C-alpha cells in the first residue's frame, strides 16, 4: 500500500516541478499568483500525505500552516496589493522565455546530480523528490534573475521558500516545529514589509519597474 503512496508523492513532486516551469514561463502577474497558490496547495497535500504515511503527526501541523499561509493568506495579500497598486500588466522578461526554459532544464539536470549523493543517504519515503526540491529552488532563483518588475521577483522569492520547505520535508520529514513556526512568521512579516515597501517605491517612481533601481553603481 505504501508503494502507492510513494508514487502519489512522486506525482505531486512532478506537478510541483511543472508548476515551477509554468511560473518561469508566465507573463501575467495574476496568473503568476494563481500558480503560486497552486504550488502551495500541492505542497500542502504532499506534506499531509507524508504525514499520513509516516505517522509523523507534527507534519499535519506543517500542512495546516502551509494551507493557511501559502494557499490563503499570501495570495490574498498579493491580490490585494496588485489591485491597490493597479499593476495587472504583462511582465517583461530580461531574457526571452524559450531561452529561460532551456536554462531551466539545465538547472534541473544539475539539481538531480547534486541531490543524488544525499538522497542515497536518506531513509525517507520521499528521498526521490529531493532533486525536484532543489530544482524548484533554483528555478525560482532563475525567475528572480530574469524578471524586471518588483512583484514577480517577490513571487520568485516566495517560490524559493516553497522549494526549501519541500526539500526539508523530503529529506528529513520537516524541521522541528518551533523552527517551522519561526520561518512562517519571517515569511509573513517579510511579505507585509514588502507590501509597505512597494507603496514607497511606487510613490517615488510612479512605477514598480526595478530598472529604476539601478542608479547606485561604482563608477
Amino acid at each position, binding site marked *: 500500500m505504501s508503494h502507492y503512496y510513494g508514487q502519489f508523492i512522486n506525482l505531486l513532486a512532478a506537478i510541483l516541478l511543472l508548476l515551477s516551469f509554468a511560473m518561469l514561463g508566465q507573463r501575467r502577474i495574476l496568473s503568476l499568483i494563481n500558480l503560486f497558490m497552486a504550488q502551495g496547495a500541492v505542497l500542502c497535500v504532499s506534506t499531509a500525505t507524508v504525514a499520513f504515511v509516516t505517522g*509523523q503527526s507534527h507534519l499535519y501541523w506543517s500542512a495546516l500552516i502551509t494551507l493557511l499561509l501559502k494557499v490563503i493568506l499570501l495570495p490574498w495579500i498579493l491580490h490585494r496589493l496588485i489591485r491597490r497598486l493597479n499593476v495587472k500588466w504583462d511582465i517583461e522578461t530580461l531574457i526571452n522565455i524559450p531561452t529561460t526554459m532551456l536554462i531551466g532544464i539545465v538547472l534541473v539536470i544539475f539539481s538531480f546530480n547534486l541531490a543524488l*549523493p*544525499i538522497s542515497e*543517504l*536518506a*531513509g525517507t519515503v520521499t528521498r526521490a523528490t529531493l532533486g525536484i526540491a532543489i530544482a524548484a*529552488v533554483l528555478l525560482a*532563483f532563475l525567475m*528572480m534573475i530574469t524578471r524586471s518588475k*518588483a512583484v514577480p*521577483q517577490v513571487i520568485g*522569492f516566495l517560490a*524559493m*521558500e516553497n522549494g*526549501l520547505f519541500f*526539500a*526539508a520535508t523530503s*529529506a*528529513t*520529514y520537516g*524541521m*522541528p516545529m*518551533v*523552527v517551522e513556526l*519561526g*520561518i512562517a*512568521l*519571517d515569511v509573513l*512579516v*517579510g511579505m507585509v*514589509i*514588502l507590501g*509597505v*515597501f512597494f507603496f*514607497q*517605491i511606487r*510613490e*517615488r*517612481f510612479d512605477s514598480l519597474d*526595478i530598472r*529604476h*533601481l*539601478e*542608479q*547606485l553603481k*561604482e*563608477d
Partner: protein
Amino acid sequence: MEFLLVLGFPLLGGIALALTGHWKRAAEINAAFSLLTLLAAIFLTVNVVEHGPQLLYDEQIFIDPLNVFLVALTAFVGFTTSLFSRPYMRIEHHHGRLTTGRLRLYHSMFQLFMFTMLLALTTNNMGILWVAMEAATLTTVLLVSLYRTAASLEAAWKYFILCGVGIAQALFGTILLFFAAEKILGHEGGALLWTHLDAVKGQLEPAVMSLAFVFLLVGYGAKVGLAPLHNWLPDAHAEGPTPVSAVLSGLLLNVALYAVLRCKVLADGALHSSLAGLLMMGFGLLSVVVAAFFLSRQKDIKRMFAYSSIEHMGIVTFAFGMGGPVANFAGLLHMTVHSLTKSAIFFAVGHATQKSGTQLMEHIRGLIKLSPTIGWGLMLGTLAILGMPPFGVFASEFLILTTAMKQQPWATPLLLMALGVAFAAIFGKVQPMVFGESAPGSLRLLPHKPAMLPVFMHLGLVLMLGLWIPPYLAEWYRQAARFIG
C-alpha cells in the same frame, strides 16, 4: 533571570516605542531601554564568566564565553548608538528630512533589531539562529529606506533581495545540517541544538556536512559582507540614517560572522580536514583585496567606510579560517576593536555630514577649525581603524599578520598590500576633510549639540585595548578562542 531581561528589554522597548513613539521623549526612552539591556547584559556576563556556560529553557538557550562576549559588545554599542542617535535624529528632524511618524518607526525598529541580534547570539537552536538572522534583515529594511529617497529605496531593495537570497542558501544549509544530525540524534530531541550537534560532530556524515557548510558559509557570509556577495553593504550603509550604518557595521556583521563560526566548529569536527578553514581564508582574503581596491574610488564618505568594514570583516574571517589559539584570539579582539572603532567613526561622520550638508568628500573641508571635536573624532577614529599604534586595531592586525607569516606565508603579501592600499586611500581622503581649507560658510551650525561623548568613549576603549588588555578580559578571550578550536 538576567538572560530573560537581556531579551525582554529590547522586545518590550520595541513594542512600547511602536505604541508611544510620537512622544517628544521617544529618543530618551530608546536610550533608557538600551541602558537597561546593557545592565542586564553586564550581569549576565559576570554570571557566565564566574559560573561557566549555561543551558537554559529546555536547552533552547546556550550562553558560553564566546557568545556572552558578543552579547556584552552588542548591548554596549547599542546603548552608545542610542545616545548618539538622540541629537542626530533631532537634527535630521529639524532639517526636515524626517517626519515624526518615521522617527517612531526608527525607534521601534532599532529596539527590535537589537532583540533579533541578541536572540541570534544566545539561541542554541540552529534553526532559530536562522530565523533571528532573517528577522534582523527584516527589521532594518525599512530603516535603510527611512529617508524615502530614490537612492535609499534602491539600497533597501538590494539589501532585502541579496540578503534574502543569501539567507535562503543558509536555510538550505541548515536543512542539510538537520539531515546529517537526524541520523544520529533522531528526529525528536534536539537534532538542531548546537550543544547536541557539538557532542556528536565527529559522527556526522562528512559528504553532507561539507555541502551544508558551503551553503551556510555563502548564506551567512552574504550578511557578513564577504566578497563577492558584498554589493548590498555599501549601498545600505551610505543611504540609511547614520545610527543605522553604525549598528549594521558594528554589530550585524559580527553577529553574522558568529553564525559562521558556530557552523565552522561543527564542520571542522565532522570533516577531519581543513576544508572549512580554507574556504573561510579564501573568502576573507578575496574580501580584503576587493574592498581595498574599491576604497580608493569612493566619493561618498559613508560608502568609503562601508568598504572599510568589508575589508576588516575579511581580515577577521581570514584569521578564523587559519584557526589555532593565537589567530582565534586575534580574530575575537579584532571583532571587538573594529566594532567599537567603526561605530565611533560613523558617529563622527554623521555629525560631519550634517555640518557640511553633504556626504561627498570633496565638499567636506576644514572640520578641525569650525568644529574641533568632530574633526578630532574623525581623525583619531580614522587613524585607529587604519591600524596605527597604539590603538587596539594595531595589536589585533599585528597578531593576525604574524600568525599568517608562520602558518600561511603565501597570504601575507596580499594582506600587507591590501592594508597599504587601504591606508593610502582612506588617509588621503580624510586628511583634507579634517585639516583642509574650508570655503567660508560651507559648514552650518547645528540646531542641537552633537553627541561626541560616545565617539571618545569608544576610542578610549580601543586605545586601552591597544595598550593593555585587562587580564580578566584576556582570559575571557582565551576561553572563547578555545571554544572555536
